[in-house]
């Protein structure tokens, strides 16, 4: 390893040991006021849609993702710009492998796509 690489790696390793995290940019769900069937133009033919948005965690050092409601609902209504979700169920799903060296937390939004 040359001197330049050492000067780069050492501060990063020291920072990781000090703090346990090099960089994180994640979104987590907080609140979602979804509609009930009586609040939209619901019909029996409305399609059931699902959107999943995830945050990823690697080696306890780096975390990234858009695991919030905004991204999950956007994915659920992809290609249906005029639709609105109703009768919504939300779940959180966590997967971790190798003592948590890689982990993923996902927000899942399931509902029917209705019209306003």
């Amino acid at each position, binding site marked *: 390893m040359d001197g330049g690489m050492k000067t780069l790696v050492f501060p990063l390793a020291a920072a990781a040991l000090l703090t346990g995290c090099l960089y994180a940019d994640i979104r987590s769900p907080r*609140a979602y006021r979804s509609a009930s069937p009586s609040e939209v133009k619901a019909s029996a033919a409305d399609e059931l849609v699902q959107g999943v948005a995830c945050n990823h965690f690697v080696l306890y050092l780096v975390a990234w993702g858009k695991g919030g409601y*905004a991204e999950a609902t956007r994915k659920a209504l992809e290609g249906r710009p005029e639709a609105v*979700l109703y009768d919504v169920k939300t779940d959180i799903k966590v997967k971790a492998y190798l003592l948590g060296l890689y982990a993923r937390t996902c927000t899942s939004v399931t509902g029917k796509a209705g019209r306003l």
Partner: protein
Amino acid sequence: MSALLALALALCGPARAQEKEAYEAKPGLIPAGGILLFYDSVGPLSFETLAPSQVPPGSRPLGELRARSCQYGLSIPLALSLRSLSLSGAGGNGGYRKALERLKRERPEAAGLFDVKVDLRLTSVLGIFRRLCTEVSGRGFARG
């Protein structure tokens, strides 16, 4: 009979005490550990939003609108150790009110939001700098 009733009440009491309230306020404040030098922060608590049916009749749709407000934190480690203490501080206004005031400034015609989603965005660099943002998104409407 009275002994049985007393036993039933005794058993039911703790169970009732463990029941959760229908609504629990959970503030979204930025965490600060170590030796706290200062803390002056506002976080989201609750936001009573509109259902689609509550939008005033004759309103004009504005499409998807987004607003954001943030809290910031600094944490300076005192030694090169995993368990070392740190000096920390946090501040900023990451509350709903600030986010919605910002939205009102950017889109003065917006009268309100419905179909509202709220996410918390955490950005952290080396654990030294942290930012916790309240991100509000929803469908906006303007008065006809």
